[in-house]
């Protein structure tokens, strides 16, 4: 007789005797199963980062490295955004401003002060945090969509100010001169994008670790409560405006670092790119398509969106090159239609498909 399950109750899994199923499987199944276990997730992630870090040795190529670098930059920025937007429910369009703070900070420190771009990136982080705090405290009193509109206004105002500021290159942009190569000057051979990719990967790793840690602290718990029901959160002692401001300040930190790396890789920064609405939307889009309020959503989203965007720009030949935005747009719409909760929400579907496939191979279960 089939046991009746209460709604929401977990279906009991058949007991698996250790070693019974492995006997007929190949030797690789055991280690793979061990790696896929939830408690060993950090090992898997660490391994993935090591593999990604070594990948230029195998895959190589300037185009691949440039695209991968951009993926890491957007993933890190969007991971920060996701802390406030995905977990805290505050949809902000001003992360491009924080990104620009680092980009211009790096650029100005080289062009005007002949200093290391790292100094400018540090200043950019400080400026971004200050902007996040000063704008956050009054704006977080607004309801969600009014807050989002206000952040668009911040983006527009910053764009106008930067476009008129001659020390920042005004609307024409700031060209960053070539200085001796090195990690301190953040300049490397233009034929080798590996250093920037490795730096981007490092930033992504640190950001992931930081966000993961914050989510385990009370801040993570508070942010989810504030997103789900701010009235109830206040009734249980949470100063919602304060905690949203804390999240805004912390979550903006990866953006200026990413911006600094981005500017130094391009040796150019202009308001029409980094302070544009499409650029700002891209940061949001990456997290939304990947999976809002999930740790890995922005990484998956950046891998999809940026790779698609950049490869279309590189690969479409001749007259077809005009179709790039169309194809890009269609893919975004399709993802939005079929994975409205983000690509990561499709995990159960993929897991089921894998289990079914695994069940066909006698004695082998994917996990």
């Amino acid at each position, binding site marked *: 007789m089939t046991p009746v399950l209460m709604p*929401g109750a977990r279906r009991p899994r058949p007991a698996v005797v250790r070693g019974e199923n492995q006997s007929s499987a190949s030797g690789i199944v055991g280690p793979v199963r061990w790696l896929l276990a939830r408690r060993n997730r950090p090992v898997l992630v660490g391994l993935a980062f090591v593999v990604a870090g070594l990948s230029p040795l195998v895959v190589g190529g300037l185009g691949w490295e440039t695209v991968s670098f951009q993926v890491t930059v957007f993933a890190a920025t969007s991971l920060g955004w996701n802390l406030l937007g995905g977990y805290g429910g505050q949809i902000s369009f001003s992360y491009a401003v924080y990104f620009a703070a680092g980009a211009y900070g790096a650029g100005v420190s080289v062009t005007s002060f002949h200093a290391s771009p790292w100094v400018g990136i540090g200043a950019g982080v400080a400026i971004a945090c200050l902007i996040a705090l000063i704008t956050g405290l009054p704006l977080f009193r607004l309801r969600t969509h009014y807050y989002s509109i206000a952040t668009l206004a911040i983006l527009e105002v910053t764009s106008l100010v930067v476009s008129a500021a001659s020390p920042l290159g005004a609307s024409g942009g700031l060209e960053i001169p070539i200085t001796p190569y090195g990690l301190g000057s953040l300049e490397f051979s233009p034929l080798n994008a590996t250093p920037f990719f490795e730096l981007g990967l490092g930033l992504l790793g640190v950001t992931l670790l930081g966000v993961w840690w914050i989510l385990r*602290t*009370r801040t993570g*718990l*508070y942010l*989810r*409560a504030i*997103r*789900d*029901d701010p*009235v*109830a*959160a*206040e*009734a*249980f*002692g*949470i*100063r*919602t405006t304060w905690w949203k401001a804390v999240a805004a300040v912390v979550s903006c930190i990866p953006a200026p670092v990413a911006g600094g790396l981005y500017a130094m890789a391009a040796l150019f920064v202009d308001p029409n790119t980094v302070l544009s609405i499409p650029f700002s939307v891209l940061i949001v889009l990456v997290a939304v398509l990947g999976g809002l*309020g999930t740790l890995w959503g922005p990484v998956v989203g950046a891998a999809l969106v940026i790779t698609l965007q950049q490869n279309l720009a590189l690969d479409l030949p001749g007259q077809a090159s005009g179709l790039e935005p169309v194809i890009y747009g269609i893919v975004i719409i399709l993802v939005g239609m079929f994975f409205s909760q983000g690509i990561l929400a499709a995990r159960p579907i993929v897991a089921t498909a894998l289990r079914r496939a695994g069940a066909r191979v006698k004695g082998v279960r994917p996990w």
Partner: protein
Amino acid sequence: MVMLRAQGVSVRFGGVQALRDVTFELGGPGIYALIGPNGAGKTTLFGVISGGVRATSGQLWFGDRQVLGWKPWEAARSGVARTFQITRAWRSLTVMEHVELAAVASGESRGAARARAAELCGSVGLSDVQHRLARELPLGQQRRMEIARALALGPSLLLLDEALAGLTATEAGELVQLISALPSRDICVLITEHVMELVMPIAHTVLVLDHGVLIAVGPPAEVARDPTVLAAYLGDAHVTP
């Protein structure tokens, strides 16, 4: 010592006078019932006490502090916890996380909060479902979760807003049993209810609101015989002089 004292509290929403010159005192631990027909102003008074509603005039003391106009988070941190008429569970949080959050917000460390949350879930009979999302639970269990969450704040005053509404007779009976044990934890409970029979047996003082006016305060048996109260519930025509 008086725990809560309201003096001439009035609230006006535009043209509606929700509370008019309400004056009362709540002493130490015990169960106080705030009753009245729908629209009498019970939830508004809860809002004033817990900080969500701004009073137009009057004074409110919590202990020896004047607290009229305080923020909800200030009230919560000072020891005023509440439940809601329509349960407000956080969508993405498990039962355990709800209780843990309140314990953390009251100043406990994460580890201590987790232990306390587990203990409170057990004491309200939710141990079996403590790792499930609170939103997925039936109403009766959600109400228990709200009480556990409120207790995690370590309150001295607990406001229960229609905690029995929508429950089956069995669920309501079990919850009444749970609520009647709260004063032994040194808690002063103020419970609103419009069904008098449910709260009369457990309350030691009853406050009756009608159209924003406090029309009676006293022991349940006395209030139940009060002609003004009967008129408010049944209409003047049904009250024998």
